[in-house]
């Protein structure tokens, strides 16, 4: 998981700008830097956290802590393997099944909520999810009206089921499309 003092909205935009990031990007936003402070990596004079890496094992113990600028990903991966092999067996994780069926996302222009769901679609790499912009297509608007009985967007239709309200859609996507 990644952490910075940026807000969740900025994390969503940043993740999407990088082509989609599905692991949790945590917002150590309010109180500012509180989590980083607990881990001893907050830099008061800049109002940001150091570029630091901490590994916590499944027992809750810190197994690694460093702040050496650019990360050596190979060394980190090897260290992760070592910690995993030394630790006792852990339960097999749930592998998320993904969306249960075909999905279509209805969005409209000039809509922050629509943008938020579009970013989640990118972050979760849901390329198979069709996108229909009702502001730009009368046909899409009619389809939305027929399916949901209203003209509000964003609306997500999954396997025939209509989901409205961006917060609910975001939670649904995160819960079904990532395995935490």
């Amino acid at each position, binding site marked *: 998981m990644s952490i910075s003092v940026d807000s969740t909205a900025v*994390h969503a935009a940043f*993740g999407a700008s990088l082509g989609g990031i599905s692991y*949790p990007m945590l917002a150590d936003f309010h109180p500012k830097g509180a989590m980083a402070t607990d881990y001893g990596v907050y830099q008061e004079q800049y109002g940001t956290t150091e570029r630091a890496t901490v590994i916590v*094992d499944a027992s809750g*113990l810190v197994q690694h802590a460093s702040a050496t600028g650019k990360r050596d990903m190979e060394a980190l991966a090897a260290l992760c393997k070592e910690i995993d092999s030394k630790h006792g067996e852990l339960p097999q994780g749930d592998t998320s099944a993904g969306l249960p069926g075909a999905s279509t996302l209805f969005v409209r222009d000039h809509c922050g909520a629509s943008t938020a769901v579009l970013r989640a679609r990118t972050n979760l790499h849901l390329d198979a999810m069709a996108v229909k912009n009702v502001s730009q297509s009368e046909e899409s608007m009619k389809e939305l009206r027929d399916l949901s009985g209203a003209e509000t967007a964003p609306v997500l239709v999954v396997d025939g089921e209509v989901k409205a309200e961006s917060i609910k859609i975001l*939670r649904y996507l995160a819960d079904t499309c990532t395995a935490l």
Partner: protein
Amino acid sequence: MIEIGTEAPDFNLRDQFGRKISLSQFRGKKHVLLLFYPLDFTAT
């Protein structure tokens, strides 16, 4: 910086999908890799 062998402090922060994520939810289930960095959209 926090020391190896100590108990990691719990946290409860929101992620880019609006979920609340805590350290304790992974206890007994997964090891956790925490990547701290200064700011989005910058090379800081």
